[in-house]
C-alpha cells in the first residue's frame, strides 16, 4: 500500500516540556487511522504539526513523499482538515466559504465541485445561510464539505463528531468511510468515542504524554492487552500508561 502520510521521529518541546516525543507512524491510501489518547496527550499538537501550523522541534512530516518543511504549499495542497475548534468564518455563507477555500486549494471546475458537495452533505437548502447561524451538526457537515473540496490524499479530522447527535454522527462516519473506500486518500482521525473508533478505524495509535504507547487493530487491541473493550483500554492508557509502555504491537 502507498503511504500518504509518513511521520518520522516527530517531537515538539515547549521550553523543558515535551508535548510530543519521537512520534513515528504512517497512514496508507484508503486507510482510516485513529489517533487516540487522553486530553493533553499530544493529539492536536501532532495534527497541528502535520497541518503545518506548528513547527516541530525535530522530526519530519511527509505528505505523499513531499517534505512539509521544504515543500509546504505543495504538501498542504494535498491535505485538508476539519476540526471542532476551527469553524469556518461565521459571517460568510456556506457557499461563499466553499468558494473561497476552493480557490485557495485551486480546485478546477469549482462551481460544479461545490454543487456536488452541497448535495453530498445535504447542504443545498443551507447554501446561502451564514455559517454562524447553523447548528453544530450543520456546521460540521459544512466543514467536512470544505475538507473534501480538493479530494485530499490526506484528510485530518480532529474530533469531527464531537457534540453531534447520534444520527448526524452516524451520517458523518458513513461519509468518511465512503471517502476512504474510494481509495483517493487516507484519513487520520481523532475521537474520544471508542465505539465510533472501533467501527470506523482500520488501525489506531494510542498516544500518552506525547508518545505512542500502542498501535494496532482497534477490534483486537483490547484483548491483546487484557482489556474487555477499547474504552477500558483507553482508560488504562490514561491512568496507567507505564504499565503499557513498550507493548506496542
Amino acid at each position, binding site marked *: 500500500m502507498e503511504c500518504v502520510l509518513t511521520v518520522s521521529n516527530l517531537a515538539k518541546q*515547549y521550553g523543558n516540556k515535551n508535548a510530543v516525543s519521537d512520534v513515528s507512524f504512517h497512514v496508507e491510501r484508503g486507510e482510516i487511522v485513529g489517533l487516540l489518547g487522553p486530553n493533553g496527550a499530544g493529539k*492536536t*499538537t501532532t495534527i*497541528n504539526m502535520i*497541518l*503545518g*501550523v*506548528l*513547527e516541530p522541534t525535530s522530526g519530519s512530516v511527509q505528505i505523499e513523499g513531499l517534505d512539509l518543511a521544504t515543500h*509546504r*504549499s*505543495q504538501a*498542504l*495542497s494535498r*491535505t*485538508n*482538515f476539519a*476540526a471542532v*475548534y*476551527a*469553524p*469556518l*468564518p*461565521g*459571517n*460568510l*455563507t456556506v457557499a*461563499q466559504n466553499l*468558494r*473561497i*477555500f476552493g*480557490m*485557495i*486549494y*485551486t480546485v478546477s471546475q469549482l462551481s460544479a465541485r461545490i454543487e456536488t458537495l452541497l448535495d453530498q452533505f445535504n447542504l443545498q437548502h443551507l447554501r446561502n445561510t451564514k455559517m454562524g447561524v447553523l447548528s453544530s451538526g450543520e456546521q460540521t457537515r459544512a466543514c467536512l464539505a470544505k475538507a473534501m473540496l480538493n479530494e485530499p490524499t490526506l484528510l485530518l479530522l480532529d474530533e469531527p463528531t464531537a457534540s453531534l447527535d447520534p444520527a448526524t454522527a452516524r451520517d458523518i462516519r458513513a461519509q468518511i468511510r465512503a471517502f476512504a473506500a474510494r481509495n483517493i486518500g487516507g484519513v487520520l482521525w481523532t475521537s474520544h468515542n471508542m465505539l465510533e473508533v472501533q467501527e470506523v478505524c482500520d488501525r489506531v495509535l494510542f498516544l500518552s504524554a506525547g508518545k505512542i504507547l500502542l498501535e494496532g487493530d482497534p477490534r483486537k487491541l483490547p484483548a491483546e492487552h487484557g482489556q474487555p473493550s477499547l474504552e477500558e483500554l483507553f482508560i488504562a492508557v490514561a491512568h496507567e500508561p507505564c504499565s503499557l509502555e513498550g507493548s506496542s504491537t
Partner: protein
Amino acid sequence: MSRMSNVNLRRSAAVVLRQYYLLRSSPVRLLPIFIWIGIDILLWGFITRYLNTVAHSGFNFVPALLGAVLMWDFFVRIMHGIATAFFEDVWTRNFLNFFATPLTVTEYVIGLVVTSIGTSIFGLLLMVLIAALFFGLSILSYGTVVAAFLLSLFLFAIGIGVLACAIVLRYGPAAEWFVWPIPAIISPLACVFYPVAVLPKWMQILAHLLPPSYVFESLRAVSAGQPPQLLGLLISGILSLLYIAAAGWVFTTVFRHALRSGLIARYSAESVN
C-alpha cells in the same frame, strides 16, 4: 526559485473575494470607507476657506492644506484598509483555516493589499469629488507630479499596514488598539501641515526618515508655484520601498515565530506562555 515566482494569484484572489463578500453584505463595513474621509475633507475645506478670508496674505490655503489632508487621508485609508482586512481574520479566528492550506504568507499579504487598493480607490474618488465640487480643488492642478505623491504615499501605507498586521499577529487581538492611532503617531513627523524646517533639529532627522515628509514638502512647493522637489520625491519612493521590504521581513519573521510557538493554532490565547 524566487518567492514571487511561486505565488498563485488565484489564492490571493480568494482572500480578496472573502473581503468582497463581507463588504457586500454589510453596510457597517462600507460606511467607514467613505464617511470619515468625507467628513475630513468637508471640515478642512471649510477651515481653509476661512483661513483664506482672514489671512489676506494672498496665499491660497486650499491646495496647500486641503490637498495635504486629501493625500494624508489617502495614506490612512490604504494603511487602515490592509489592517481591517487582516482584522477580519483575527475577529473570526480564521488563521488556522487559512494557514493550514497551501496559501502562502506572500499570497495572503497580496490579497490584503489588493483589497485595500479596491476600497481606497472609492475613498479617493469621493475625496477628489468633494474637494472639487465644494472647494474648487482639482488634484490635477498639481500637475503630473501628483502621481508621484500618491504612489509614494501608497507604497509607504502598504509598508506600515503590513507592519501593523505583524504587530497584531505577534501580540494578539488586544494589540488592535495600537494599530488605529499609528497614522496619528506618525503625522507630527510626516509634516502634513507645516514645513520640516519648523521642527526641532532632532525631529527633523526623524522626519527625513519618513517618506511622507518629502511628499508634503513637494506638495507645498507646488502649491506655492515652485517646481516639485524631484530629488525629495525620489528619496521618498526609495524609502517607501525600504519600508515595504522591512515590513515584509518583520511579518515573515513574526509568522515563523507564530509557527514555532504554536500561536497560529491558538491565536485567541494571545501567547502560548
